[in-house]
């Protein structure tokens, strides 16, 4: 497999940019809109996903020789659900105010296509260290996307960042409404496609 020859740095970079979960692969989109109305929530969810993604990759990679291919899907699901439960309980105990707002979305990490896909495509075929970097890269990519989206939404919608007021006057209320989430992601995705086409000669995100 050619993918094994990639260095750890390349694996990290691939997750962060080349196969960025939200802007390039366009999977696991739900939280990118649901919790990005403020930077705090976006970062909290991004970090949770990063943790789950990395730990799942490590665990699946460590167990890859013992998992029978026929029952791999339920096993992946159980491993993911286990780590999601851990993060869910940790958040419920130590970060109550955030948990009250994004609790449901934390629990829903369990149904994330991106985590499952990396376990299936990468971790179940590779050694532990490359899997760790792959998971970390994917997680960081997701976190970056969340930061970018929530940065624009909070700044334009409330005139604040992390809750600190920066711009006075009437903010664009639409950006923190549900509709603004879709608009923000659509415009950012279009922008990244444009950058990719203009400067790297790519064809843009293939999309669905």
């Amino acid at each position: 497999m050619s993918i094994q020859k990639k260095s750890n740095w390349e694996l990290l970079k691939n997750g962060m940019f080349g196969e960025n979960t939200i802007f390039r692969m366009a999977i696991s989109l739900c939280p990118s809109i649901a919790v990005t109305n403020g930077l705090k929530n976006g970062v909290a969810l991004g970090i949770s996903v990063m943790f789950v993604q990395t730990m799942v990759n490590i665990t699946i990679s460590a167990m890859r020789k013992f998992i029978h291919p026929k029952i791999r899907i339920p096993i992946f699901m159980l491993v993911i659900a286990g780590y999601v439960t851990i993060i869910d309980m940790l958040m419920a105990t130590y970060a109550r105010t955030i948990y009250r707002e994004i609790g449901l979305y934390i629990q829903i990490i369990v149904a994330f296509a991106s985590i499952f896909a990396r376990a299936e495509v990468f971790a179940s075929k590779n050694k532990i260290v490359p899997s760790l970097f792959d998971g970390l890269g994917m997680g960081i990519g997701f976190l970056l996307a969340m930061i970018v989206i929530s940065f624009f939404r909070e700044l334009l919608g409330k005139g604040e960042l992390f809750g600190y007021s920066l711009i006075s006057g009437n903010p664009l209320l639409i950006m923190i409404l549900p509709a603004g989430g879709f608009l923000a992601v659509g415009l950012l995705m279009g922008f990244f496609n444009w950058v990719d086409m203009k400067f790297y000669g790519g064809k843009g995100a293939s999309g669905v």
Partner: protein
Amino acid sequence: MDFFKLLELVVAASLINNFVFTRFLGLCIFFGVTKKMETAVGMSITFTAVMVVSAAISWVVYEQIMIPLDLTFLKIIIFIGIVAAFVQSADTIMKKVSPSMYYKLGVYLALITTNCIIIAVPLINAGEHYSFFESMAFGLGSGLGFALALLIMASIREKLEVADVPAPFKGLPISFIIAGLIALAFTGFSGLITL
């Protein structure tokens, strides 16, 4: 059992708190299958059916087994297990009983496990302590709401095929912007009824 309460739940779950446009769940499938009307219809039917049944099964397991045994902290693992097992068995049964239907709708069954709504509905039911019939009504409403979203989106995206969209916005980005506009329309439903 109050019939109007149930009706209210259905309307609330499908229009006011529409999963796609106000809670942003199930987006992967929402953008995945709305390219063609045919797939959107297939997905809507399969999804609504699975939703109601899995809401009912999860309710029974949660209220009758997990609460008495004090196992509620395992709810994420158990619900995803129930949904996966149910989808898998529905897949097998359908293949055996009605092959023609399986060829039409079987593909969507496999996709459903990766849909966030399917896990969100049991979790919300458990959180709100809905009764058995309320849980089913909520499941039905969510399914109908999702179906409505799929059909609206699919009919717009079919028209989009012939539209002249700027190159970087082709495909997904423009779909997101359209979804944003529909979501804006759906905010008009808020306050339609208060529970």
